[in-house]
């Protein structure tokens, strides 16, 4: 057991905090991420993270807590994107990309100014790639509060959001305030991105948002289960990442830690690749298409879909 859990792992303070904050953040990302992937908004989610980068860098420049900057940046970005109409229409990649570019440019400026002003080292690294081991315990209540807020928003809007994800016209005809729902969702997204930026860095937070959700959507066809799977996968990746990063201290004589975010990202990526493996793909596709063998398949000529044959009855 010794070489899996290096000495001091279970008693280390920073490890505890990292696990707690990381898990909370993974849960939030999983819940929101399912909608982000389902709505085809991976790019928007990533761009929000880049706007959050600018926010975090600005906070660093101003000498304020980075979490505040991440969340503020995310919220501002979400507002801008909602105005462009990102959450209602798929795509809008160009406008999103422009916002992204300008934000990164701003981040570059803030980081440069901040570094020269305060002559601290490692700021870029922290903001961009996260430093989960240096989170102070006083941050935890804020993280918990924002997380509850985010999950609460999602619990509130998930039904009308689901409806408008299927068709905005259908939702609007039912009296759903599509604009308001979109805005609330973007707010939740901004919070999720802001929170995970704290844990694994703004640039990498996309992995926690998109990866577990994509894996979950592949494995299950019910939204409740998708969220649960995404959360479990995310938490698993985070805990694994914390463990491996802690152990990496002992891997070479130079005693340089490997960044936690690296392990988390790679774990998620590998998890996604596994769902791409041929036999897993076909078995899940068949499960997703269960239909009773009694119904005559009259529409086989006009089938729009993956073209699989009918599977066994559940």
């Amino acid at each position, binding site marked *: 057991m010794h070489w899996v859990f290096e000495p001091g792992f279970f008693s280390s303070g920073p490890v505890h905090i990292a696990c707690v904050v990381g898990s909370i953040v993974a849960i939030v990302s999983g819940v929101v991420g399912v909608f982000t992937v389902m709505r085809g908004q991976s790019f928007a989610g990533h761009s929000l993270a880049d706007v959050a980068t600018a926010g975090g860098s600005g906070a660093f420049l101003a000498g304020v807590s980075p979490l505040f900057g991440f969340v503020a940046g995310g919220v501002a970005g979400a507002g801008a994107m909602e105005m462009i109409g990102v959450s209602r229409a798929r795509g809008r990649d160009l406008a999103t990309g422009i916002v992204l570019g300008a934000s990164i440019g701003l981040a570059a400026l803030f980081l440069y100014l901040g570094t020269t002003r305060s002559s601290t080292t490692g700021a870029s690294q922290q903001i961009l790639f996260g430093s989960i081991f240096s989170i102070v315990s006083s941050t935890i209540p804020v993280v918990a509060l924002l997380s509850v807020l985010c999950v609460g928003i999602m619990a509130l809007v998930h039904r009308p959001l689901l*409806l408008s994800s299927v*068709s905005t016209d259908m939702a609007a005809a039912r009296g759903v305030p599509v604009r308001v729902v979109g805005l609330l969702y973007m707010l939740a997204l901004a919070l999720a991105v802001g929170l995970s930026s704290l844990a694994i860095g703004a640039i990498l937070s996309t992995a926690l948002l998109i990866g577990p959700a994509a894996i979950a959507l592949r494995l299950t066809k019910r939204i409740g289960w998708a969220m649960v799977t995404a959360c479990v996968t995310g938490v698993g990746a985070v805990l694994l990442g914390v463990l491996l990063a802690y152990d990496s201290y002992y891997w070479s004589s130079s005693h340089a830690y490997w960044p936690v975010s690296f392990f988390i990202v790679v774990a998620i990526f590998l998890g996604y690749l596994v769902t791409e493996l041929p036999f897993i793909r076909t078995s899940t596709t068949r499960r997703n298409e269960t239909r009773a063998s009694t119904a005559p398949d009259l529409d086989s000529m006009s089938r*729009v*879909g993956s073209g699989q044959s009918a599977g066994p009855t559940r």
Partner: protein
Amino acid sequence: MDSTGPDATSSELLEVEGVSVSLSGRRILDDVTFGVRAGEFTGLIGSNGAGKTTLLRVILGLQRPTAGRVLVLGAPRSHRNRSMGYVPQKIMLDPDMPLRARDLVALGIDGNRFGIPTPSRQRREAVDEMLHAVDAEGFGDARVGTLSGGEQQRVLIAHALIGRPQLLLLDEPLANLDLKSGQEVVTLLDRIAEEQHIGVLLSAHEMNPLLPVMDRIVYLAGGRAASGPTDQVVRDEVLSALYGYEVHVHTLHGRILVVAGPMEESGLPPDPSLKAV
């Protein structure tokens, strides 16, 4: 026409009065007036670009008309309208969408409400019943993204009907279906209209599949509309007035053909520009 039912002489379910819509300087709809009655099947016929979707959107409250008004059950339409079910033409069906057919139908009950639903046996039974009504039990547990065009259509109809609306609006439901599926949908809708005493308004660019079941037709051309029983509307004079140029109606083997321009006596058309209606 409608001699059975409690309110045979009641006012129309839906009244469209003098609706005009102009977008970007173009007049899309011009003084359109018609009504839809309970238990009746009304076809909204017009070629692509004639303004069918715009008209439906006005009725649904998604588009504000430049002039005219829409009355639902005698009152001006309000924002939240429980009495109308809507089946759109296109929906975003990602293969990853974590919705089974029955989940989509369940959304028809309360998908517009905030908060978390409490699972109840009532809901499940209502969904099962509706799936049965549209012959969708066979694929109730399948992901919506894997359904064929016809299956999707039926699920959407179930979704719209489960809220017990009095009016059902469908935007070009036959557009992406093969002939057989299209006929099934039309027959299904006609049955539902009768059984549940609902008014059905369905838009299409081809009227022939609807001829057997259509009680009334609303014909859109040139932004204007003519409405009434099919045999009174689909005539040379009426349609020519709508189109603004000479148009002839021919019946071939029970199918109606609307052709532009005069035809030679010999029966050989000089250059029949067939209007796909």
